[in-house]
């Protein structure tokens, strides 16, 4: 078995086709006719662009316009006047076109790789692709045609280049194995778009595998099974079929309402970290945004974001969601994050220290600029404000008073906003759970952050392996906390959502239905799964399960029982 990074879900069983690296070796020639050599270079660029356009067209049909655009970027790169000028200068200095192209491409590969920035470093792969494509044209080498691969082929290659991906015929290629790449590399993005199982970063794949041998690619687990036994073939065939069946079945839930088997309707939202993530939420069929983390606006920079900058980001998310609800959580940051300009000092216990709402209420100018930005964006859709880490009602009151101040400032300036903007509490501390009854009287909604609620209730850091066993939302104490928060919200008739990971857990769903949760907020890839899991339960069945669970005294009992009924 070979281990790698699972970059595209699913299972492929097929025969290996090794895409060997072409030898692009050449002996540098002396150039006597500079004009002719320049012409040879320009002809190669034209041919490269024509090839790329053809490949982009193929990929547009097989995959989509976005993926095609990645490839079309190669044309802009090779046509770059600066890069062209540098290559021409080398040719004019009597270097052959091959050498000139290789040298200048290498300069950019080194430059991109040296930035240490992941996105920029990925561009180095594009430049390598351009270099190889140009050298192949200049040397008159015919490229290997992946498009000719027979049905049931697993492609094994050192690095999957965007131009290679263009040749992939979805019907014939059942898996992809590479020696390089990560979850976010182009290979991964393209493999997912093509829905071909892929395992990347498998060390030595090209040398240890040979053409025509049978292998299993498990893109969900990130493993490659070599020389599979008959039992393994049977096992993985069944796994593959059930994966495909589940996937088809999930698609039936797209565009549907989120509703239990007995007809209760729920809101099913997504958690996002940037405005761009909102696009994923829409693509995943999310009905809104239940948690928009705003930290990205403050990270990796040297000064506070301006009000305008924040306004643009919030407005953008709302526009992408086409007016569906967007719950924006105000800055949730503390001494655990390296943001020098905020002047947060390192503290012994940052999770119990000066962070989130506590920090914001002490830095009112900064907080007010965020609130004003959110208010201004609320003129463009259904935007709601959520305060993190509330532990006492004074914090909610002070936050609300500051929202009123911000509203007044905007009124004076004649700027539009939603007068009735909803202000809610992220219930994620044990304290907020205990005073949920009084908080519910003054908040417009609750959202349960189960990740922190579990940690604060159990006083257990899940990152510490000695105490991680305590960190479970199925601990009776945490379940009681969750139930209490939901019941207190119901009593005051305010909506109550859950934006922690537990909201997507199939074992937790019947309990949440029974307690009376009104909104589930999950990561985009979980949306359809959660909708399907909610549809499984009637309120009556969920109540029966919850009643039994809430009498149990240990986490082990709870989990064992839930696993037996879900």
């Amino acid at each position, binding site marked *: 078995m070979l281990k790698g990074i699972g970059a595209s879900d699913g299972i492929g069983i097929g025969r290996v086709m090794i895409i060997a690296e072409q030898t692009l070796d050449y002996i540098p020639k002396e150039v006597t006719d500079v004009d002719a050599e320049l012409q040879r270079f320009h002809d190669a660029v034209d041919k490269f662009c024509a090839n790329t356009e053809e490949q982009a067209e193929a990929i547009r049909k097989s995959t989509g316009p976005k993926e095609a*655009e*990645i490839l079309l*970027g190669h044309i*802009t*790169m090779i046509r*770059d*006047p*600066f*890069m062209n000028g540098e290559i021409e200068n080398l040719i004019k200095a009597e270097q052959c076109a091959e050498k000139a192209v290789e040298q200048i491409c290498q300069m*950019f590969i080194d*430059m*991109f790789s040296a*930035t240490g*920035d992941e*996105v*920029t470093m990925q*561009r180095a792969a*594009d*430049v390598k692709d351009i270099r190889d494509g140009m050298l192949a044209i200049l040397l008159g080498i015919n490229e290997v045609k992946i498009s000719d691969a027979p049905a049931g082929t697993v492609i094994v290659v050192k690095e999957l280049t965007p131009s290679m991906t263009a040749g992939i015929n979805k019907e014939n290629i059942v898996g992809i194995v590479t020696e390089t790449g990560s979850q976010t590399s182009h290979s991964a993005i393209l493999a997912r778009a093509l829905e071909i199982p892929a395992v990347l970063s498998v060390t030595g794949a090209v040398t240890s595998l040979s053409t025509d041998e049978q292998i299993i690619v498990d893109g969900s687990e990130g493993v490659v099974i070599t020389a599979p036994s008959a039992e393994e073939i049977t096992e993985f065939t069944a796994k593959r079929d059930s994966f495909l069946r589940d996937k088809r079945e999930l698609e039936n839930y797209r565009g549907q309402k989120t509703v239990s088997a007995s007809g209760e309707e729920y809101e099913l939202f997504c958690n996002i970290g*940037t*405005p*761009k993530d909102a696009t994923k939420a829409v693509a995943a069929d999310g009905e809104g945004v239940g948690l928009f983390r705003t930290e*990205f*606006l403050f990270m*990796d*920079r040297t000064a506070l*974001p*301006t009000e305008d*900058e924040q306004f*643009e*980001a919030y407005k*953008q998310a709302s526009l992408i969601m086409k007016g569906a609800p967007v719950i924006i959580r105000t800055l949730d940051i503390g001494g655990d994050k390296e943001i020098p300009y905020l002047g947060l000092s390192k503290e012994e216990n940052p999770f119990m220290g000066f962070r989130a709402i506590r920090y914001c209420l002490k830095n009112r100018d900064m907080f007010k600029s965020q609130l004003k930005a959110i208010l201004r964006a609320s003129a463009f859709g259904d935007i709601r404000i959520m305060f993190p880490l509330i532990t006492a009602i004074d914090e909610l009151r002070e936050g609300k008073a500051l929202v009123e101040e911000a509203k007044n400032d905007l009124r004076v300036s004649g700027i539009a906003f939603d007068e009735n903007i909803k202000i809610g509490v992220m219930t994620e501390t044990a304290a907020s759970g205990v005073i949920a009854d009084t908080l519910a009287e003054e908040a417009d909604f609750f959202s349960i952050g189960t990740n922190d609620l579990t940690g604060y209730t159990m006083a257990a850091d899940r990152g510490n392996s000695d105490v991680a066993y305590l960190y479970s939302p199925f601990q009776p104490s945490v379940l009681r906390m969750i139930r209490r928060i939901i019941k207190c919200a119901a009593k005051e008739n305010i909506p109550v959502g859950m934006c922690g990971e537990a909201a997507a857990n199939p074992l937790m769903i019947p309990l949440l239905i029974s307690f009376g949760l009104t909104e589930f907020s999950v990561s985009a890839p979980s949306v359809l799964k959660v909708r399907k899991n909610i549809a499984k339960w009637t309120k009556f069945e969920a109540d029966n399960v919850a009643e039994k669970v809430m009498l149990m005294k240990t986490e082990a009992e709870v989990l064992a029982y839930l696993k037996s009924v879900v």
Partner: protein
Amino acid sequence: MVSKKLTIVNAQGFHMRPASAFATAMNKYASDVVIRHNGSDVNAKSLMNIIAACIKCGNEIEIVATGADEEAAVAEAAAMIEGGFGE
């Protein structure tokens, strides 16, 4: 010479697509156009140089154009950057 200070607003900064559209737009102008970023001048007509400059969301930059159509070049550059490259 005309120049304008700007802040990058789109979440991904000058990544492939915006950088490519930006360089293509700037190549229409006869003027020299540079992006002043972190104390160095980046050729705004070169996609490759823009990518290498790693310009991120929130970065403050200055567009400087010199030549016959410098006004128009800076105006279009500013419109693209302030509009977040339509992202």
